[in-house]
């Protein structure tokens, strides 16, 4: 399987934060969710990979090409959180701007998407709701035959209905086998619905990069008391967290653990719980 997007050893140092040797890939035809708490380094990773900030080390490969030249940028669509375009413009004026920026701009596709999402072409963007602005940004990102979509916290602050519409758009996009998506979000429930792979970043480092199904179907949490916790084989523990009345232990193979510890309660782990245990738990 080829990769649509690869970052390798990406490093950026700030006085109070270090993005430390971040490496992961987005296989062609897949959706990769970049998760992590606020300030974990998701946006810094995307900004460094897109050349918005100067990286100190590391390589970026996009659609099989090293770096980001004009031709490569023609084939990627990027959507950031919040406003993406000058709000004085209307979608129709934006069409005029984009037509003169992207050689591959597809006006017909753009207006079809506007119609599909009930976005008025002549209304100034400043009078759009946050959800409408996001739909417009995604419509523009999809209107120049992009093969790779990169969304940075694009669904943050949107209501569940709009988020669901956007997730449907993303799923539609990735139906083409050479289309891929990297989506960063701290709303892990969204990623559980659409992502094929999850990359978890914590304190500027990649903690894991795994297929989502492996996380959801194999990972588990042992909920136990102190005595039961002491009896656990420490090699089975990924991380653990002491709660008020119980211990929560993250394990990589819940069925195996259930057999090994028949008296323990082993429950499936959501991505949210896995993330919380990694962030707040101990090793």
């Amino acid at each position, binding site marked *: 399987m080829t990769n649509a997007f690869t970052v390798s050893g990406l490093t950026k140092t700030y006085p109070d934060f270090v993005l430390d040797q971040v490496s992961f890939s987005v296989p062609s035809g897949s959706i990769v969710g970049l998760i992590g708490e606020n300030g974990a380094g998701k946006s810094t990773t995307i900004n460094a990979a897109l050349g918005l900030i100067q990286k100190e080390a590391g390589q970026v490969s996009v659609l099989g090409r090293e770096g980001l030249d004009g031709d490569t940028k023609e084939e990627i669509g990027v959507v950031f959180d919040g406003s993406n375009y000058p709000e004085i413009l209307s979608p129709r004026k934006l069409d005029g*701007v984009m037509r003169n920026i992207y050689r591959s701009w597809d006006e017909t596709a753009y207006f079809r998407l506007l119609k599909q999402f009930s976005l008025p072409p002549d209304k100034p963007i400043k009078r759009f709701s946050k959800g409408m602005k996001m739909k417009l940004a995604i419509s523009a990102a999809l209107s120049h035959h992009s093969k790779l979509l*990169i969304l940075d916290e694009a669904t943050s602050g949107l209501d569940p209905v709009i988020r669901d519409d956007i997730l449907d758009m993303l799923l539609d996009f990735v139906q083409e086998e050479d289309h891929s998506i990297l989506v960063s979000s701290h709303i892990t429930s969204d990623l559980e619905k659409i992502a094929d792979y999850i990359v978890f970043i914590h304190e500027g480092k990649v903690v894991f990069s795994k297929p989502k199904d492996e996380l959801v179907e194999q990972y588990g949490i042992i909920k136990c008391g102190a005595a039961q916790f002491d009896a656990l084989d420490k090699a089975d523990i990924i991380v653990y967290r002491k709660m008020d009345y119980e211990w929560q232990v993250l394990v990589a193979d819940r069925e195996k653990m259930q057999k090994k510890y028949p008296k323990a309660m082993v429950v499936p782990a959501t991505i949210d719980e896995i993330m919380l245990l990694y962030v707040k738990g101990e090793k």
Partner: protein
Amino acid sequence: MKGVLLKDLYIAKSNILVTVVSLVVLGFGLSFLLETSALLVLAPVASTTAVFISITSDAASKWNKNVITMPVSRGQIIGEKFVFYILLAVLGLVTALIPCLILGALGVDVTLHSLCLYGSIGISATLLAGGISLPCAYLFDPEKSQIVFMMSFMASTGIIVGIVLLTNLFLPVKENILLAFNIVLAISALWFFISYRVAVKVYQKRDII
């Protein structure tokens, strides 16, 4: 670059219209008080404010971040702002010529010499000010760059006086006033070009967040 320029024209449209109307009205108004062609000094400078409106708008709407991900180089982004600045200055100059030419046709004393002289001073001041303020707009945050923008016009006046005094050392300015201000114009154009190259270099390494 064409798309980015179009975006700036959309943003600055209302501001440009107000500037054009104001300059025409001011031109006719000035004719009662002083030489109408003196408007050519003010017009190019006044009309370039729209560039800074577009720079502030780019930052507020995060367009400056979004555009980096598009097939537009950082050099083109900066180049477009400098081209936009010159276009607005020329538009201001042409607009100011309208009342001058109309009043000239009506018999008011408007000479080619005064048009060239004041036009030269106006464009020189605009190029010098832009050469200071445009790179600074990408070095500092929007609030600071607005202060630099205002100060750059004062600075440009001082620089023009300085160049004229220097020119006077080897060329009597009073007898060759148009030539002296054409020298100022040539130096200003060179300054603006150097400033563009510096701004491109600065922006290449700047983190956009």
